[in-house]
């Protein structure tokens, strides 16, 4: 049923598209990997270096508890930062590209 109204391979060679693709890829996979490293450091550090988690920082509240809390903050930071970049950068590039094609 679908009518091929777009020449997909032509769009795929459009310099604007290539720029958008490259930017998105670097950003998304870069941050995904960085966030994953931070995330997996939690089970690894708590499992293999438990003494680190025991260091008391604020009264009886130790590094481990604060490290878990920091996981939440890091995830929220990544989400906010991505939203900012996507809203300003990726969406703008996409709009320009779509306008050019249509």
């Amino acid at each position, binding site marked *: *049923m679908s009518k091929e*109204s*777009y020449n997909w391979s032509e769009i795929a060679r459009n310099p604007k598209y290539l720029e958008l*693709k490259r930017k998105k890829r670097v950003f998304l996979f870069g941050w995904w990997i960085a966030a994953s490293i931070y995330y997996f450091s939690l089970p690894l550090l708590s499992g293999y270096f438990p003494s680190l988690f025991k260091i008391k920082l*604020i009264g*009886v509240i130790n590094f481990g508890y604060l490290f*878990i809390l920091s996981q*939440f903050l890091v995830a929220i930071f990544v989400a906010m930062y991505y939203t900012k970049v996507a*809203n300003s950068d990726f969406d703008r590039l996409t709009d320009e590209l779509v306008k050019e094609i249509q």
Partner: protein
Amino acid sequence: MFTKILSALMLTLLLAAPGFAEEPSKQAPQGAALVQPSASALQAPAAVPGQPAAAAPAAKAAAPTGGMPTKVKPNRAITISMFMTIIGITLCVVIWAARQTKSASDFYTAGGGITGLQNGWAIAGDYMSAASFLGMSGLISLYGIDGFMYAVGPMFSFIAILLVIAEPCRNAGKFTLGDILSFRTAPKPVRAVAAISTVTVSLFYLIAQMVGAGKLMQVLLDIPYRVSVIGVGILMVGYVVFGGMKATTWVQIIKAGLLMSGTVLLAFLVMAKAGMNPVGFFTDIVGNQLIQDHVRMNVLKDALPKAGFDYGQRFMEPGLFLKNPLDQVSLGIAWALGAAGLPHILMRFFTVPSAKEARKSIVIALFINSSFFFLINIIGFGAALYLSPQLISSVDKGGNMATLLLAQLLGGGAGSLGGDMFLAFICAVAFATILAVVSGLVLAASAAIAHDVYVNIVMDGKADQHTQVKVARITSLFVGLAAIVMGLAAEKENVVALVALAFAVAASGNFPAVMLSLFWKRFNTAGVISALLVGTISALGLVVISPVMTYPQKIADDAKKIVSTLEKKQQEGAVLAEKDLKLLDKSRTDYTKNNGQTSMVGLTAPIFPLKNPGIVSVPLGLIAAIIGTLLFRDRRAEDMFDEIEVRQITGLGISKASDH
């Protein structure tokens, strides 16, 4: 059309009514209690002759002797009226949604008309299951910080979904996992395998939820297991069959709203009790004698305190519950990748009109869930401090009743109106939670059967909207019935394995298949099929030989140890307490029943040491996908890569995506 739906709804209600009313088999005046929730017979169990034995200890505990309760005893009248209110509201939503569900796209994706904000709440609702609401706070109340560590996985899983799954899937798909995977591959075999995988994952998850629901309602309402499973099942089928995605989404949103209100209120009351001082709160926990005793005797099993060891501080340190770091990493992989491959989560991205809204919905869901899990940590530690781990584990060994007990306490204590109201409210919230989660699962499984198998394989995509909706409804009905039957059959089964399995299959099969479909040019039919098959089979194979299965020989050995210890005591002339005599009896039966028996696959002990297979099965699924792809080169799939890539990056052709 509408009258038909209404009459069918009435039928559902009629079916449900005897389901709930079946409980009078135990207590005479209960049928009446349902109609008139204020009937006082329920409030004074001891006054009713022929009261089931199970209620006796609860009645004793409620007496002001200061004894520890051995059971949560919600006020049935208040609880049932709250349940009925929730059922009433959701049924109104279903009627409203049913009137607007006309096309296949209405049924599966609410016509793409859900906003990012609504979808965010609905996704958050999918994550906040009864297991996290009741189970996680229970774990924290018994094992301290390890329970809190559990919360990081679900929260972090949003990162993969946000960055690499949600928007591309929104742009490249239509209703199901099969739509994404079959985009540039041989549609029929890929859809068939994708449907099998979706149904398997959803049913595993669904059965675990049904069994959990049955057991929870059994405790909360004091009704038989089968009645609660059938009741939950009928409601779930009603929501999905009549209201499709729109009703499922709104049930999910209502539940998420209720759950967050309950959680915020509970956490606020805990902090108010602690004088709004977090440092003081944790200092009190560390200094609490009961918590110190619990850590020393029940968790670390030190009969005599080690000199200079701070057992209270130990509660704030990891390793009381999570023992094996590799298992934690493996669980982490299952969360980080598995959640992004769960069909009922994937399906939620198709309900919003654009990639931008999909992005917004994930960010909102992340916010809600981060707050939720943070508050759960306050509730869990609060339960440990204000109830004591001893009391929590005496009511339920796994701590699952901690949240409920805490609500009762903070509302004013057992028997007080405030306590009863707050407990009933939290029970009703748990009930709404279960209903919402199971509905989403039924919808995902039936979409795979109706849309992928029936419409696209059997009918070659040639089915009009009316037929598609009809088939989808019939399929949902049968999926729901299957879930009820399996839920009933699995009453005595160990369902913990099923949840681990659902996540492991999603992480090892679905996730690599989706990722490579979107990002690897050469990926093809052989790649998809090998990823799904190897991912599923390896996850399944590893779980059935892992420690999460039940090993009768181990139960027999443990029982034998108890028997010999107690018999030795008896021989030494000690008179055993009634509790010990009962334990001796039970252990003897356990021993004879389990000795020489083997696990489901004929093992006496686990072969695979980890509870979570992800660390092995995810690489296996990925390698299989790559090898399968490289062995069978497919030029067509490569040629079509430009299309899927341009679509997923730019969102071009999104309205046409519903035609391909």
